[in-house]
């Protein structure tokens, strides 16, 4: 500020130009900003708005303001929404717990293996990454066929070995096993590639120095590799949690949310399936929007905790 005043007295013309807002950076972010407003900003506020109504997009005249009624339904035992929503949410959290550790550990191990100078390393990288290019529906169908009980690949071979395999898709906890296996196979490539890139950024001299000091490979991994990977691992853990929270297509196709539970809802029905059902099958779009906001708040809270816990150790 002081320099600005000084310069103003020296050259008024230059100062006038300086006081003008520099639009260039805004122009650069404008395309993204427009997309953000159209596809995220506006839907966010519009969703918040309709979550206060009993709302069906095709029956605007029948819209009715219910205040926080849609939210209250989710927290009042005995409403049609209560049991199925919390069942779905708890299932989803269960899936996050089951899926995130393998989604972090397996890609890390693969990345370490593929960060060597062995022959055909690019081929292996491509092979592990390839499933990520498939659509979720294809992956789910593929694994459904492998796990199904009548002539499915796994049960066929297990029966050949004289074992009595479980009904993978229709009993717990096996249905979760199938969904976690399908998910890990499908998405580990993405995490692997990111970790691989980070591994290649760790300078060689750190390892050379540790070797001179007599560190073993395992010591080097825990004292150099992991700490250097920390920012990337936080990113991976956070994005994996968010991705797992959005579980939808795998149970939608593989188990259709089953096996059914006595009290209502399915054993593998995710909260996203419940929201889809509420909004597009039952056409209670206000209530579905309210569910989305409750889930989003939980996701934001978890992401925040995650950054606080892992991010603050320096």
């Amino acid at each position, binding site marked *: 500020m002081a320099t600005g005043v000084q310069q103003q007295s020296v050259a008024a013309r230059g100062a006038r130009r300086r006081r003008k807002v520099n639009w260039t950076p805004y122009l650069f972010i404008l395309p993204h900003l427009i997309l953000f407003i159209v596809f995220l900003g506006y839907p966010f506020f519009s969703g918040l708005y309709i979550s206060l109504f*009993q709302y*069906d997009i095709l029956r605007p005249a029948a819209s009715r303001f219910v205040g926080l009624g849609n939210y209250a339904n989710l927290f009042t035992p005995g*409403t*049609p929404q209560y049991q199925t929503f919390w069942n779905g949410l708890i299932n989803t959290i269960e899936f996050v717990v089951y899926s995130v550790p393998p989604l972090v550990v397996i890609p890390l191990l693969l990345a370490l293996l593929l960060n060597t100078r062995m022959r055909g390393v690019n081929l292996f990288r491509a092979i592990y990454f390839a499933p990520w290019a498939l659509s979720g529906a294809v992956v789910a169908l593929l694994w459904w066929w492998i796990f199904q009980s009548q002539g499915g690949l796994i049960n066929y071979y297990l029966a050949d070995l004289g074992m009595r395999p479980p*009904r993978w898709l*229709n009993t717990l906890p096996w249905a979760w096993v199938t969904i976690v296996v399908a998910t890990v196979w499908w998405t580990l490539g993405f995490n692997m590639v990111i970790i691989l890139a980070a591994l290649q950024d760790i300078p060689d001299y750190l390892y050379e120095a540790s070797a001179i000091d007599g560190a073993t490979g395992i010591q080097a991994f825990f004292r150099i590799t992991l700490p250097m990977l920390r920012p990337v691992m936080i990113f991976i853990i956070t994005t994996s949690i968010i991705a797992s929270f959005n579980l939808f297509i795998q149970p939608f196709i593989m188990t259709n949310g089953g096996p*059914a*539970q006595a009290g209502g809802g399915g054993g593998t029905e995710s909260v996203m399936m419940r929201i889809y059902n509420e909004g*597009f*099958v039952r056409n209670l779009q206000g209530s579905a929007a309210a569910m989305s906001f409750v889930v989003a708040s939980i996701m934001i809270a978890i992401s925040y905790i995650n950054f606080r816990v892992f991010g603050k150790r320096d």
Partner: protein
Amino acid sequence: MGQMVDQFNEEHPNIQVTMTSQGEYYTQLSTAAASNTLPDVAIVHVDQVATQAFRNIIQPIDDLVGQIGVSAGDFPEPVWAGGEVNGKRYSIPLDIHPLTMFYNADLFQTAGISNPPTNRQEFEQAAQQLTSGDNNGFMITAGFPVAQIFATLLHQNGGSWFNEDGTKAAWNSPEGVEALQWMQQAQQNYSQPNLEVDAELNAFKGGTVGMVWNGIWQTTNLTGEGVDFAGQTAAVPQIFDQPAVWAGSHQFTRPVQQNADPCRDAAVAIFIRYMLDNSVTWARAGQVPASNAVRQSIVSGGAGGAGASASAAAGGAGASASAAAGDDASGGLLPSAALAQSVETAVFPPSVPGITDAFAPLDEAISAVMSGSATDIQAALNDAASRADQILAENQQNFGTAPQQ
């Protein structure tokens, strides 16, 4: 359906119809309605007619009924009633697709069973006889279509899904409990526990299963060239006191249009009439025509068909014969006479908007019982009924008493 539309286009140069089929159909209809791109004609399932009417997706077609030239007498009463909402007609039935029994006639022959069972005693005897070693006499899953099987048995036993006006669930009656008990017993005696959806079809195709009950739309999958044994269709046996069978029905509707156009209305009428008259083609894809006249022509028509229907009436002996007879030159599979007749006892849910929502708790309860996670049948059905009642009340309050813009 595509074949029928092509033929229609060929015969009507001044009316051209483009057919599209969609997954997640009702979501697609909703989005089409939101963007004003609804088609001129749409097929809607009978249990969705009221919902789609209340959601302003389809419009009343009382004026078109005369142009199409159909009336109540042309169809079985329940399927015609399913197209009426609040005293207005919204849809014209094309087909009725009942729960159907598929059986492996080769296994039947080996076991010395000559006819598909038609009642409880015959069914249980046959299923028992066919269950040995790796073979299952009857296979039932813990998912789809157990709700359809339950509906069939519930109504055969004199029960009902809902009360008269569709405001309360009624499946937790003694009749319902008995029906579900029978299913559980059948699973224990003849089937395997905890089978996932479609497991019974895959096993049947593997040739180790005597009988399965599934939708008639599985005909091409489970009979004829779909299997390498003699797969046959028959009506689901009557286990309890009354004939009844779960069925769905595809119905023609006129979606809401932005601009009224009598010319298009007339074209739609001609199209629907043509489709009804030519629904024999549709029948070959494994659907029973809803039109009485067309259905009669299947039952009595074809080479030796008349004899087959007579013997079917005499105790089901002709059911397999007529299925073979119905397998006519054009390569399709017409339903057997007994099966075609069974649709006259088809049951449909009441014409109430959002009625399918109320089935969700029932589906869950039945699946929970069949997969063993619920053991008290009465409690499971009671719980499902009370949750369905809440959903019905919520729907009533959501949809109101009449469709509104």
